[in-house]
């Protein structure tokens, strides 16, 4: 059972929101005492996803939650946008695949950096990505 301990919402509409957003994620990670390597992995994954949201949907909203399960605590981030959506999820999760001009490491890379990764998308309606990083994960 995953219990939510705190919630924080932030909307991303400009490129400059990226830096304050990273700081908010960092605050949540520091609050639960996450080590520096896991912190860096979480923030980097968050950075990839926010960039995707910005690039393909022009922005969106992120929910930052501190969660706990038994003895473990962690940070869960939910990225929601109302962009064009992803037609082929398995293709989007492949290393090196990109419809834009990026390296195509965003989604698969972010998945490798966190403990739980969930991607839902409906073409024409938007995309929701949820990631979770445990303190000692």
């Amino acid at each position, binding site marked *: 059972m995953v219990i939510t301990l705190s919630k924080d919402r932030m909307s991303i509409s400009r490129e400059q929101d990226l830096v304050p957003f990273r700081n908010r994620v960092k605050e949540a990670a520091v609050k639960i005492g996450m080590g520096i390597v896991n912190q*860096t992995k979480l923030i980097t994954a968050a*950075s990839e996803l926010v960039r995707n949201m910005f690039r393909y949907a022009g922005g969106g909203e992120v929910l930052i939650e501190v969660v706990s399960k038994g003895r473990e605590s962690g940070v869960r981030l939910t990225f929601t946008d109302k962009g064009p959506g992803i037609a082929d999820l398995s293709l989007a999760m492949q290393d090196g695949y990109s419809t834009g001009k990026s390296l195509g490491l965003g989604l698969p890379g972010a998945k490798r950096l966190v403990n739980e990764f969930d991607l839902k998308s409906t073409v024409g309606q938007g995309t929701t990505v949820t990631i979770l990083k445990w303190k000692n994960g």
Partner: protein
Amino acid sequence: MDKIPILRMGPFLLVTIQVDLYDRLALNLESDLVQKVHQTGARGVLIDISAVSIVDSFMGRILGNIASMTRVLDAETVVVGMQPAVAITLIELGLSLKGVHTALDVERGMALLQEKLDWDTDVADDDGDNIE
């Protein structure tokens, strides 16, 4: 608009990134550096990222681009001072920054660039000898 200062040190350019980069700032740095290498005829670029806590795939790509672009202009790029957590994260992300030289700190980065420059000069001298 924020700008990242580029310092000239002899035949090399030194950039110390002290702030968290957002995309526009990184892109500006890329174009500024390439311009500066061209203007000054610098033979090496040293980028100190010891104060940078996050390098994502975008930043990684910018670093790779800078290295490739300056190489075309005959200047090697060395990235120095990467934090351990950043290095581990980049590897996990799947980015090994191929083509970018790395060094532990600014001093060693400078030594590496100097070494490459000396070697280049030696080769050039040898060529000259051969012609004579």
